[in-house]
């Protein structure tokens, strides 16, 4: 089939690669416009655009997916099907109507759980044991279309959202390819999602990633920190400045007030609402990321000092 692939970040690459290497023909990719990124705010090509450039495939970057010029070009191309992985913008009905077989989205949860922008972060944050990936036909409502296929994936005890998403991107790519095959062969019949047990996973803001050592139990802090790693990254305040934090590990010990720091030879502990947690790595403003022990030695933490 003639495909136009829509996707933007790194996590879309395994799917795009799988489709490029398949019996189908990827004639163009749609991706979010180049955006300034990182320190120095250099304008960078999206990972999907970069791979498409490498393979000599046309790249479309409409500012919004309803742009008439974009829709015209899409009609000219005339795709049979448009697979989507983390494109990052809504598709208006005018775009949905163009490909013969519609648009198929690979979403990183077992729908109807965790519709929305941050399903993997929500799964880690809520302590789900099992999550997965789903392919479904895109309809106007958010992540609500009929489902073609599902794979499941266990959430491991120390998974960060980034690690889990990495595995889902790989298993999801296989699912997406078999979905595209099945649609072409006419062997797949999509099934409507159940109406009950719908949940939503809004995108995670920087404020959502603040660790509140005073009011949160150690086990919950552990999940929150893993859920927001690497994006947007956990943080707390130390001496009035923002301190970025990597994952934290609960330990079964006692004796620290909420937020209180204790520096040992090989560990830095912080008190929580329950038992303490061990800090892994930290990044102070304007500094490089470093092991928490190195940081603690550098800033000379005094007895009783707190992080909040």
């Amino acid at each position, binding site marked *: 089939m003639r495909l136009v692939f829509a996707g933007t970040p790194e996590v879309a690459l395994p799917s795009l690669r799988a489709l490029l290497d398949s019996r189908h023909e990827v004639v163009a990719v749609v991706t979010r416009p180049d955006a300034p990124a990182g320190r120095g705010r250099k304008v960078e090509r999206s990972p999907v655009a970069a791979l498409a450039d490498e393979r000599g495939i046309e790249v479309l970057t409409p500012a*919004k997916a*309803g742009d008439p010029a974009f829709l015209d070009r899409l009609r000219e191309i005339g795709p049979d099907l448009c697979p989507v992985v983390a494109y990052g913008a*809504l598709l208006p009905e005018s775009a949905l109507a163009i490909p013969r077989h519609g648009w198929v989205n690979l979403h990183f949860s077992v729908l109807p759980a965790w519709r*929305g922008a941050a399903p993997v972060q929500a799964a880690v944050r809520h302590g789900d044991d099992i999550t997965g990936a789903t392919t479904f036909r895109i309809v106007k409502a958010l992540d609500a279309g009929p489902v073609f296929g599902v794979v499941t994936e266990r959430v491991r005890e120390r998974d960060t959202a980034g690690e889990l998403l990495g595995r889902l991107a790989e298993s999801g790519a296989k699912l997406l390819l078999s979905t595209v095959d099945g649609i072409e062969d006419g062997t797949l019949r999509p099934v409507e999602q159940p109406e009950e047990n719908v949940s*939503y996973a*809004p995108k*995670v803001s920087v*404020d959502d990633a603040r660790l509140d050592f005073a009011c949160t139990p150690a086990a919950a802090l552990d999940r929150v920190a893993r859920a927001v790693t690497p994006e947007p990254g956990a943080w707390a305040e130390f001496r009035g400045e923002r301190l970025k934090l990597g994952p934290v590990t609960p330990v079964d010990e006692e004796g620290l007030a909420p937020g209180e720091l204790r520096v040992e030879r090989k560990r830095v502990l912080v008190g929580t609402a329950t038992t303490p947690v061990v800090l892994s790595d930290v990044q102070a403003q304007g500094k490089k990321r470093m092991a928490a022990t190195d940081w603690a030695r550098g800033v000379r933490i005094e007895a009783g000092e707190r992080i909040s």
Partner: protein
Amino acid sequence: MTQRSSRPSRPRGPHPPRRRTGPARPPVEDPARLAALDTLRAVRQRDAYANLVLPGLLRDRRITGRDAALATELAYGTSRAQGLLDAILAACSDRPLSEVDGSVLDALRLGAYQLLRTRIPAHAAVASTVDLVRAELGSGAAGFANAVLRRVTGQDEAGWIDEVAPDEETDPVGYLAMAHAHPRWIAQAFAEALGSRGEPLRAALTADDARPAVHLAARPGECSADELAAMTGGEVAPHSPYGVHLEPGAGDPGDLDPVREKLATVQDEGSQLCALALTRAPLEGPDERWLDLCAGPGGKAVLLGALATLSGATLDAVEKAPHRAELIRKAAGDLPVTVHVADGRDSGLPAGGFDRVLVDAPCTGLGALRRRPEARWRRQPSDVAPLARLQRELLTSALELVRPGGVVAYVVCSPHLSESVGVVADVARRTGAERLDTRAAFPGVPDLGGGPHVQLWPHLHGTDAMFCALLRRPA
């Protein structure tokens, strides 16, 4: 061999000698403060609206991220606090503010705001402001600005309020007005609507002086509040079934995908509730013809149009200004909305032709001051009477357009009694319209008072201070 471009190359050789022009002055590299200052100047010189000027400046000058956030905080915050800042600056200046050059005064307000209401260190606030003044007006003005701002640093906001505000015991309204940076007459109007000069007034003024969250309305039938919250990272609103709140300062909501794709609009939750109240009022007989008599710029018309689609009704929208009527047409898209360019007092529509009519009347906007930074200092007490007269005429007209037994919702974004209770009581008396218990059309909303009308408040409901009264035309 490579081909040389045919474009003429730059002349070779040494650069021409630099001309010396007086003492070198360092350029001001402070785009955020400069944008804030230029906004204040536009507001002062040409009666501009801060929240229309600033976004354009930020776009044109490509100011983004933290600089944009700082410019917004400074421009809006300074506009909001102007009266309080002026009282403090007057106490710190050896000449009357009326004799200070307008541009210097803008800069002084900007500097004083940073000193009193932000966490910017005092030395940075003073130095950056003095730099702006020096770059624009020379070192004489800079010296004056420096001297005044140094005096402002002598106390914090609370200390200054104690010094410049009326005595709290003898003039509680005057004191609260100054302490929360409101003109006295507006604080007085709030006090009358609240029936309080004490804690409720303090709470209302405090909430009115805070930076409001942006509210979105999911378009009924297109997406749910849950979906909208998931798409935008906002929170589902507490009272409106279509509402979502975004964090304050979350950037330009017009850039959000769901807004651009017309799945949602930017609309205060209070406006949503008042439009919904019209549809929730009990009605006997047909319920197919709805009318929005003062529809521009179209927020409530779009919400009502979407609800009309779902219930098989149609909406007529009346707007006097052709360009605003065009805005409504665009926003309504394929909804069953017919737009008429006409004065609501003389619309030419058939008398008794509608089952439900909304009158969202032009008003002083005292209930939406938190969303219009400079408005509180621009409005005058003399604005109230002519608006109240217009409101009475519009409401009377609405009661003629609705069929016997039909319902009219009268809505203003002002708690001023002359524009709210006063208008409704007067028109009801003269037309014989029945006043319904409007609270029943706000299910689940707490603190609605003794009725029969509804007054929403920022400090109680997190909405603008919207007033809503439902009336029924006698059968």
